[in-house]
Every structure is written in structure tokens, then in C-alpha cells.
């Protein structure tokens, strides 16, 4: 396997300690849990998605572990503006605040709370199970462009996270780039459902949710590959990554960094484990492999 040269990197205007970030919504509700993941070797962390007003999320079950993955319908629970205080102790750390809203104005309002208080912002235009939010906006290129512009014009590093639940993800990525995004994150979860045969009803309180984990890795690789052809800003790969070799594969598809979420369920020390396998002082520069599968 390819080994990479260790050290800090810069992606989409954000300085990271290494190529591995914690994905949004995983242990991202408190400053302490984010700090724990940073101390465990992550190069940066993305928070739970924060929105214009406090939300309790969907009724449970909110999450089910299935073969090869996880299906969740959390429903974007978040404390809204109170979260600013949560991050106070992490001022100088590589923390990216994930935000959501129902309109470009709402995105801009929430972004304003965190501008200058975090390394950057990640726009959740991709959650598949929150009506009026996330993917509801993220499948419309014009809205994606507008929401991105509303935040990017604040002058903060702006990443845009895309949904795979569209016919043409490259078209959405191009819209984010036109709106002024500094990087694209791909992907959020894949719309999915399971039914309890014993209770004869969908397991999740919200009925359907989003699939993450190993099962979606091939979908994520394909999306990153498509986006690399269509966009010129950096891409952050996300979806099913659980090994150093997965990271290398994502990079070969075109990712400059990666986010890891569901793999934490097997091992909260996953970042340190991957760092250990991925980096070597004799390793190569990541630039040598990013997008190399497109040759």
C-alpha cells in the first residue's frame, strides 16, 4: 500500500493536522467529545449540523446497525445558537462547524454566529431525512448556488456537503463551485429503509433514513470520481471509509482529504489506527496520488 508523508496540510482554506476528519453528526454535539476525537488523532473535526433554532430530532428509533452499515434518521437535533459557547474552548483547534437552514438567509444567519470562531463552515445540503432541509435543498442546483454564495460571501472558508441521492452529482458540485465554495464534501448518507418483520413496520421512527458505513464506500468513490471531473476546487471524500487503504483509494478517485463517521462505532480509536497505517516519514506527498485514477 502507498504510505503518505505525515504533517499538517491545507484543504479548501482550512489547515488540518492530517488528511483525516471526523464527519458531521458523529460525536459532534459537545465540545468535549470533539476534543476527545482530536486527541485521538483526527486531523480536524466537523460538528453536528447546527440550524436556525433548537431541534429535538425525530422520535426513535433514530439509528439501526445493519449488515455493513448504519441507517440513521436523527432529524438534525441541535441546540442552535447555544452551540457557539460549546466551541469556546476549541478556538484554536481545527474545528469545522456544519450548518443547515431552510433558505439562503437562514444559512447566512447561522453562519454569522460562527464566522471567525471556527476554522471553517460546512454546509449540510444533503441530509436525506429532514423535510425542508438538507437534500431537499441540495438537489436543486440553483438553490445550492444561492445558499453557498450567502455563506461564502462572509469570507469564511466554506465547504459544501453533497447528497448522493441525485441523478447527477457533478451538476450540483459545479453549482457549489459557482457559488464560491472552497471545497466540496461528498457524500452524505444514501436514502434507505429497513422493516421489522416482527413488528411489521419500518424500524426508524421517521420510517426512512440514510445509510452510511462500509456498504456505501463504492457509491462514495464513484461520486468523488465524478466530481473530480466536473470541478476544480478540492474534494473531501466521505462515506464508508474504515481503513488506510480506503483513504488512499478515495484520494486516487480525487479526494484531497477524507471524513470518517460510522467506522467510529467499531473503534473510537479509528483515527489513530489509520494514522498509524497511512503515514510514514519515507512516504510520498499526497499530491502524487490525488486523482491519479483519472489518468
Amino acid at each position, binding site marked *: 500500500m502507498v504510505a503518505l508523508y505525515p504533517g499538517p496540510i491545507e484543504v479548501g482554506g482550512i489547515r488540518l493536522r492530517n488528511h483525516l476528519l471526523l464527519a458531521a453528526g458523529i460525536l459532534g454535539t459537545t465540545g468535549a467529545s470533539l476534543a476527545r476525537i482530536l486527541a485521538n488523532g483526527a486531523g480536524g473535526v466537523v460538528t453536528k449540523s447546527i440550524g436556525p433554532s433548537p431541534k429535538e430530532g425525530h422520535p426513535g428509533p433514530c439509528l439501526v446497525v445493519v449488515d455493513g452499515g448504519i441507517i440513521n434518521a436523527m432529524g438534525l437535533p441541535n441546540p442552535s445558537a447555544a452551540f457557539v459557547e460549546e466551541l469556546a474552548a476549541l478556538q484554536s483547534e481545527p474545528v469545522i462547524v456544519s450548518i443547515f437552514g431552510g433558505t439562503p438567509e437562514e444559512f447566512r444567519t447561522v453562519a454569522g454566529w460562527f464566522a471567525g470562531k471556527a476554522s471553517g463552515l460546512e454546509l449540510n445540503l444533503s441530509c436525506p431525512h429532514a423535510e425542508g432541509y438538507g437534500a431537499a435543498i441540495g438537489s436543486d442546483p440553483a438553490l445550492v448556488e444561492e445558499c453557498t454564495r450567502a455563506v461564502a460571501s462572509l469570507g469564511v472558508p466554506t465547504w459544501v456537503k453533497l447528497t448522493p441521492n441525485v441523478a447527477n452529482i457533478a451538476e450540483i458540485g459545479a453549482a457549489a463551485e459557482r457559488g464560491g465554495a472552497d471545497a466540496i464534501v461528498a457524500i452524505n448518507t444514501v436514502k434507505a429503509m429497513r422493516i421489522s418483520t416482527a413488528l411489521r413496520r419500518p424500524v426508524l421512527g421517521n420510517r426512512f433514513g440514510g445509510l452510511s458505513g462500509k456498504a456505501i464506500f463504492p457509491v462514495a468513490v464513484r461520486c468523488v470520481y465524478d466530481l473530480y471531473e466536473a470541478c476544480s476546487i478540492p474534494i473531501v471524500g466521505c462515506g464508508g471509509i474504515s481503513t488506510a487503504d480506503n483513504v488512499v483509494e478515495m484520494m486516487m478517485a480525487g479526494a484531497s482529504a477524507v471524513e470518517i463517521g460510522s467506522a467510529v462505532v*467499531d473503534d473510537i480509536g479509528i483515527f489513530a489506527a489509520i494514522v498509524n497505517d497511512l503515514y510514514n516519514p519515507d512516504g510520498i506527498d499526497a499530491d502524487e496520488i490525488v486523482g491519479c485514477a483519472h489518468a
Partner: protein
Amino acid sequence: MHEQMPAGVMITEIVEETPSIRTFVFDRKIAARPGQFVMVWVPGVDEIPMGLSSPSSITVQKVGDATAALFAMHEGDRIGIRGPYGNGFSVSGRTLAIGGGVGASPLLPLVAAGQVDTFLLGARTASELLFTDRIRGAAALMIATDDGTAGHHGFVTELISRVDLADFDHICICGPEVMMAAVLAILDREGCTERGQFSINRYMKCGVGLCGSCCTDPHGLRVCRDGPVFSGDVLLDSEFGHYARDASGSRRRV
């Protein structure tokens, strides 16, 4: 990680333990360590964490929507169960158990396993005392009620002065957070916080250590996965006894 779909179980027996607490027995045995919990799916309402009071039962206090919906169920009805989750208690040698209210429930499997020597049991009033008969058969039982209708008139924490903490290798505690915080303060004063094992309660959505809703300050420990049982020294100087978070992640005083 292997698939963990909720198992559909049928309620075979409902026992009225006290006016506000019922035990729901179901038709499946769950291999669990004492102190582990399950996520209980009340169809159409919510999914909530519950300690196991035996391999095939949960003992529930009615406090809100989901527990009220459980109380409206009958023998023959179905619920979903996933788990067991969490670490559970881990004891050897002599053990003191301290339970308040429905907090006696996750301590019962320790009693059933013959691992408790002395049990300090508290409740608001005599009729709310849980499992007195079953505990009395297996351990020395000391009782306290807030209103003095049974046992010592006062808090269960006041019974601690009647035992010699040095006699016990482990002290397992479960109950309302203010009561557990009072026990922690006593163990701290006696210099034995590391012998305390506290089963703590936080808002849980996923139960498997991913969503972050149950994380505690300042270490970012997950109550669902790193707990729910924590050693007293870990809880000193933490949010424990001060605040917790609600469903949205906002802080609330306990």
C-alpha cells in the same frame, strides 16, 4: 459490527411493583452483565434506554410519553428490544449496593447473581420501595423513606453512616442524580471514590456510541458505550451532579 436490528418481543407478564413502577417481562432472554441496558422500542412513540432487571424484563417508572405508552400496553403486545449495551457493573469480593427509586432496577441482577452483601434501598414512601422481598432473601437490606413510612426517616444516603465502607470492595449506586451526587461526595470525603461504581443516566438516541447525545463533560465519555457505569473518581470534577443535556443537546441543570 454485526447487524443489530431490534428483536420483536412479546410482553408475557406485567407486574405492578409500586403505584408508579411496573415490570414488563418478555418472551426472550438477553445474555447481559448486571447493569447493562437495552434500547426499548415502543412502536409509533419512541425508543428509550432501560436497564435490565432480569435477563427477560425491564422495570419502568412512568415519567413521560414513551413510558406512559408502555403502561398502556397489555400482555401479548409486542415491543422491540436491541442490546444489551454498555459496560455494566464489575464486582468481586464484598459489595455494597445503594439504590434510590427505580434505580434499584439495574442493581437487581447483581442481587440475583448473589454478588451483593448489603443493600441500602431508598424511596419517597413505603409503597414506592422496589424489590424489598427479593433483596431481603439475598442480602442484608437497610431501608430509608423520605416520609418515614418505612425504615429510616430520611434519605438513603444517611444510611451510609451505619455501615463501614472499609468492609466493601465495591459500592454500586443507581438512583436520581442528586442522590448519586450525594453518595459521591461521601465517598470523596472517605477517600474511596475509586471503589464507587455509579450507573448514570443521560439522554440517549443511538445507544451504540455514535450520535454524541449522551457525551459528558469534560472527557467526552459516552454514557451509552463507555458507561453507563463509571467509577467515582472519573465523575469527580465532571458535569455529574451539575448539568445534563436534553434531546437537542442543550444543557439543563439536574
